[in-house]
Structure formats: C-alpha cells, structure tokens
C-alpha cells in the first residue's frame, strides 16, 4: 500500500435496501492534514464515516490504516485503533452529566469498577475549558442547548488521543465564536500529526481550514483536490455539478398588513419582547447561541409557557396554549431540532409529512390513503427529498434530507406566519438555494416569515429587517440596508 497516507480507503461500496449509499469510493488521508469531504445531502458522507468508525460494515472494499489492512467490526475496535468521531446526529446520554458523557467508557477509577468522581469532573472540566466555553460539567446533558451539546461532543472526540478524528458537520449548531475556537483546536491537532476528516456544507469554513477537499455525489467519488487551488465557485461547481448563480435571490415586496405582533412578551428565558411582522416580509432574528431566540418562538408557538405579554394575529389578541392552537391560527414552526421536536424518526416519510395536516387528506377522520400518498409524493418532489420512497423510515434518511422532511411537513399546512429556526442547518448548497427561493416566493405570496439564523450571510442575504437578540432581550432592530456583519455582532455580543 501507498505508505504516504495515514488512512487509505479503496473501492468501498455499501448498499441499503433501495439505496446505493457508497459506490466504489476512495479516500486518502494524510497525517497532520485536514481533509474535507463535501457533497449534497445523501451523497454518502456520513455512511463512509460510519464505516470508518466501525458503526456499519461495508459490502466490499478495503481500508488501510498506517499501511495495514483493517476491518473494524465495532466502534470499540475503531477507537482502540486510534479513530474518533463527532457524529452529525449527536448521540449524548441525556440523563448523565456532561462529565460522564465526555469520559464515557474511560472513567478514571479509584480501583477497577469504582469511579473516581473527583477526577472525572476535573478531567472533563479541563477538556471543556480547553474549548473556551463555560459549561458546568455536573449539568445533565438534557439541560444543554443543541450548541452546548455540540461542544461537549467535540470535547469528547478530541479527548481520547485519536490519530484520526472524524468531524461530521461539527459546526452545524454553533456560532462563529465557537467555530473560531474549534478551528484553533483543529490547527493544534494537525500540528501534532493528527489527521482530521472534516465534513461540512459550509464553503467558507472548508476553504479556511481544509488542506484537501474530496467531493462525493450520489454515493460516488467525484474529485479530490488541494484546497489551495479552489474557490467558492469551483467548489459549488464540483458539488452541484453546475454553477449556481446568486444563491440569495431575494426580491423585496412592499410589506402588507401586520400578520403577527407581540407586545412585552416575557417567559423563562426572555423578557419584554415586542415586535411585529408584516405580510410579505422576512424578519431575520440574529444573536448568539443561547440568546433566547428559539425560546421566544417556542413560546409564541405554544410549546413553552408565556409569563406575561400579548400576542396579536392580524390585530386580534389571541392566547396560544398549544401548538395545535397556533397552527389553527395560521402559525407554522420549523424547529431547529429535527430529532426532538421535528420528526417522528421511527415513522415513515409519508406519515411525517402529513402528520400535522391529516385533516386535508381524510374524510371524517378516515384517512384517504390514495390522496395522502399523492400529497406525500408531491412534497417529496417539491422539496427534492432523497428517499427510496414515501414509505422509507425517516431515521434512515441522511441528515439534510430529514431537515427537508420537516420543511415539507410544516409548509403543507400552508401557514400564514412561518417561523424558520435555523432552516438550512445541515442542508447542502443546492438545496439551500432552493429553500431561499422558496422563502422568497412565500413572502411574495403574502406570508410573513420569521427566520432565526446563526449564519450571518443568510441573515443579511434574506432579511428585510433584522432583530438582534441578546440575553433574552431585543438589543437592536436593523433595516436590511444598514445591516452589516460587524453591526450585528456588536449588538449580539454581551
């Protein structure tokens, strides 16, 4: 085998019922380098990584590590050999503490079988503070936000002296500040000779951190190139297979009547929130992770309790106590957390898509299966969901395609006021452009759109107006024309 590579994957193939997830793929990773893997949703990136970490076994093909052929039959094997992975779909133990999660399986002991709690907490505190974030290590995992969970998973992955660290979309839930910290750590790791395999849909990140880029499409290897010779356009071209002109295709329409307004709204994590959204408008909500943006919207949608304040729909005061009521009032909520609040993972694509809108495909509570199938297929086509069929279990879809199912589901109800919470999280560049187009079209059709986003280019590219949220309060309202990244950050920072 070629000895210059630390890790070499050759002719790897893997099929799932109805899907060829990997088709004769190869990948050569050098020690001390960052190798980015990119590609559309469902291209097979995560599948490739899950094979490397021993979670699933390939149908055929070889993996060479330090020149020797290896075949991992379990994650345990792979970790022992020197692999480590941050999973795209985070896999914490919700009822254990942060410390217990980070050192799961490697707990320091007083004597075998007896955990040394003090050491456990000290060691994990050390790992967490290395990441420059402050999360108490004795907190239960389930009390953490998605972003904090992501940071804990990062801490866990870099803590076990691996030689190859796989990061499957590590930055999908964190904001710029944490991304910078992560990149500092990656530089540190590669300087020590560790190889990092980095999966991301974010062009800027990849161009910034990667040494080499491999692009996959439909389970096939497309190209591998040094990152230094690439720019954004070239990357998009490789990933999508054609150039994409103008991703943010935003045309502003004159705003119509006020569809939703809130006055002096307060809840557990926010206070004194007042704003309004007009028909035809896209209202961007910017802020740091944990600023309370999601919590405000969850409260409006009836998922969390409101302490005080008022909500008006088309000028009429309303009291929203449950998501069902919110939906009846014409509000739709696309959650940032597809696993928790977005999807029933054990259920099929069809059932998830129609779950919130069964009334439109049933007569007197009897489901019209033909109509339902037709509606599901339409949504699958419209949102370009990559699935062998409407009866596939959602759990088996790639992360990005799961996100599209959430979109398809919420928009099927045809809501008037649509709250998008991190709508393009984990979504590939082509699909992103499609979602932006869809938002623009929805706004043009007179819907009011609220878009929470941690991606500043997205906020700037799509919003007509921007609210910056800081520590549970609106710190600034900006018009699209006056907003810049710097200005937003200034009001977002504590």
């Amino acid at each position, binding site marked *: 085998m070629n000895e210059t590579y630390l890790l070499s994957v050759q002719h790897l193939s893997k099929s799932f019922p109805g899907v060829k997830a990997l088709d004769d793929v190869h990948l050569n990773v050098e020690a001390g380098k960052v190798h980015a893997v990119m590609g559309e949703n469902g291209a097979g990136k995560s599948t490739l990584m899950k094979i490397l970490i021993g979670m699933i076994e390939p149908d055929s093909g070889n993996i060479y590590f330090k020149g020797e052929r290896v075949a991992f039959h379990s994650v345990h094997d792979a970790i022992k050999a020197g692999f480590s992975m941050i999973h795209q779909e985070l896999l914490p133990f919700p009822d254990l503490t942060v410390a217990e999660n980070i050192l799961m399986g490697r707990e320091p002991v007083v004597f075998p079988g007896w955990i040394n709690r003090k050491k456990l907490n000290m060691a994990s505190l050390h790992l967490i503070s290395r990441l420059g974030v402050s999360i108490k290590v004795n907190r239960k995992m389930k009390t953490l936000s998605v972003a904090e969970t992501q940071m804990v998973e990062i801490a866990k992955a870099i803590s076990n002296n691996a030689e190859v660290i796989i990061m499957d979309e590590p930055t999908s839930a964190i904001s710029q500040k944490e991304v910078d910290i992560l990149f500092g750590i990656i530089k540190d790791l590669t300087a020590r000779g560790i190889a990092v395999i980095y999966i991301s849909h974010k062009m800027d990140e990849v161009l910034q951190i990667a040494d080499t880029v491999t692009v996959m499409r439909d389970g096939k290897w497309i190209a591998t190139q040094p990152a230094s010779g690439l720019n954004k356009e070239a990357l998009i071209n490789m990933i999508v297979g054609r150039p994409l002109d103008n991703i943010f295709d935003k045309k502003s329409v004159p705003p119509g009547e006020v569809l939703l307004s809130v006055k002096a709204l307060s809840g557990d994590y926010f206070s004194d929130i007042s704003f309004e959204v007009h028909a035809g408008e896209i209202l961007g909500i910017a802020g740091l992770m944990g600023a309370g943006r999601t919590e405000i919207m969850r409260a409006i949608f009836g998922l969390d309790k409101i302490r005080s304040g008022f909500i008006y729909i088309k000028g009429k005061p309303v009291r929203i106590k449950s*998501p*069902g009521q919110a939906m009846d009032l014409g509000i739709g909520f696309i959650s940032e957390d597809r696993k928790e609040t977005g*999807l029933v*993972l054990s259920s099929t694509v069809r059932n998830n898509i129609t779950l919130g809108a*069964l009334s439109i495909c*049933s007569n007197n*509570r*009897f489901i019209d299966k033909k109509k339902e199938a037709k509606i599901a297929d339409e949504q699958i086509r419209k949102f370009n969901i990559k699935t062998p069929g409407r009866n596939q279990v959602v759990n088996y879809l790639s992360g990005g395609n799961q996100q599209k199912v959430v979109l398809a589901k919420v928009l099927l109800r045809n809501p008037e006021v649509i709250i998008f919470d991190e709508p393009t999280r984990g979504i590939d560049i082509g699909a992103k452009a499609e979602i932006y187009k869809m938002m623009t079209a929805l706004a043009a059709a007179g819907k009011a759109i609220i878009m929470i986003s941690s991606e500043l280019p997205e906020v700037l590219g799509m919003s007509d107006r921007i609210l910056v949220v800081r520590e549970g309060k609106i710190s600034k309202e900006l018009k699209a024309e006056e907003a810049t990244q710097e200005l937003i950050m200034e009001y977002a920072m504590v």
Partner: protein
Amino acid sequence: MILAKNYLSKYGILIALLVICIILSVATPYFFTVQNLVIVLRQVSVNGILAIGVTFVIIAGGIDLSLGSVVALTGVAAASFAHPGAYPLIVPLLMGLLTGVLAGVINGLTITLGKVAPFIVTLGMMTMTRGLALVWSDGRPVTNLSPAFNFIGGGDLLYIPVPILLFVLVIIVAYILLNYTTAGRYIYAVGGNEQAARASGIRVNAVKMFAYIICSGLAALAGIVLAARITTGQPNAGVAYELDAIAAVVIGGTSLLGGRGTVTGTVIGVLIIGVINNGLDLLNVSSYYQQIIKGVIIIGAVLIDRKNGK
C-alpha cells in the same frame, strides 16, 4: 438471497407460527383437526381481545398492567346484573363495559394530567380493581346467570362460537382504527416522539386517553366473555392475564418503546401462545414443564424474529 431475507424478516413470526403448527401436527394428529382448531380459537379469544387492546397502549408508548384485574372486576360487574329475569341483557353488558371504560379513564387521567409513569399507575389500578372485584362480590363467585348472558361465552352463531366472532370483530375494528383513521396515526406518532407529535398540533393527552380507554374497554369485553363462558362472575379470574397479552404483543413485533407495531403481529403472537398451550395439553405435558417450554418458545420466537429483522 436478499429476497429470501426480506421475506423472512417480514414474515418471520408467521413462519415461526407455521413451524410450531407443523411440529404439533406431526407430534399429535388430533392437533390439525377442525374440531381442535376451533377449540384453540375459542381459547385464545379472551387473551386475543386483551392483547389487541394493550397493543394500542404499547404503540402509544405506554403499558397497562391492570388488564387481568379489570377482567375480573368487569366480569363481576356484568354478572351481578345478569341474573335470570332481573334486567334485559343490555344492562349487564353496559355495566361491564362502563366499569372498564371508567378504569381506562382513571388510568389515562392519572398518566396524562397527573404525569405519573404508566407502569406505576396501572400497577396501582391492578390491585385496586382486584380489591374492588372482591368487595363487590363479597369474595364469592357471582353465579346463577341468565342463559342469554351465558350465550356470549358459550353460544354459537352460524356454527361459530360467539367469542371467536367477537375476537374477529375486534381485530377488524382495531385494524381499521390503527391503519385508516387519524386517531390511529396519532397513536403511532405519540408513541414515536411525543414532543414532535405535540409540535405537529396533535393533542397528545387526548390521544393517550383514547388508547387507555380502548385498552380497558376491550378488557371489559374480555371480562364479559370470560364470565359468560364460565357462567360465573369470578373475582379471582384473570390473574396474570396481562402478561400473556403483553407477551403476545411483543412476539408480534410491537416495540415496547412505542411508535411501532401492528394488529396482524399481535394476532399472530396470540395464536402462537394459544397453539403452544393447546399442543402441550394434547401431548399431556405436565403443567410444570409446560411453563418452562412455553417460556423458551416465546423467547425463542422473538429471538428468531429479531435476528432476521436485522
């Protein structure tokens, strides 16, 4: 090969049933006679009705341990109004069913509004209803029931025993409910991911209530059938029936975690348990050994099914 595997995983448990039937047919020729198969069906109908009911609850992510005691209580309740010449037949039937529904309502309310774990709530309900059955009947069997009432357990309609007809009716209704109605769809959603179901505008508590009421309601039906078959309202009847029902559901591929399961699977699970009971009786296996063999076959069947399912 792949085809064979798919086939196995989809029909694994059905194949297990067939294999058990074939073995029993070879071991004792009497097993595979119309006469005996009707006996088997009649024997399984009570457990079958219970198992279908608890399928709803388990798919919704819950559990119901009170079934066996509800069978006893509703049997006593119905029987006390079923003495000859006392009331028209509808009265004992309604009394039984309403008692069951009430148990379901209490289970459901405590679980949804009280936020107590289903295991604990229904465990409490199990001892409460058993106690109630004993108090109601003074600890004595309620005998001397009208022929019309007993017909439900022992009669034939069009040459088919009434319990079997009721079981089949329950299967059909449950199948339609779970597969063709919005309520059924919501039960799967609530069991699969309660949060997501709520965020989709589903009234989660109402759905859970529905599942528990169906479950206890069917337990009441089973209680009536059993009382009519033994022509007695027996306060000590139905002990541990919930375990056979839950076993049948799990054998049938329904996940105890919720969100997944089928009526067809449960019916096959019920038949497997019934056929084993009947076969071992025919083979004159001592009841001590019967328990051991039954346990082994139940676990074995599920094991084979899950292996293929992967």
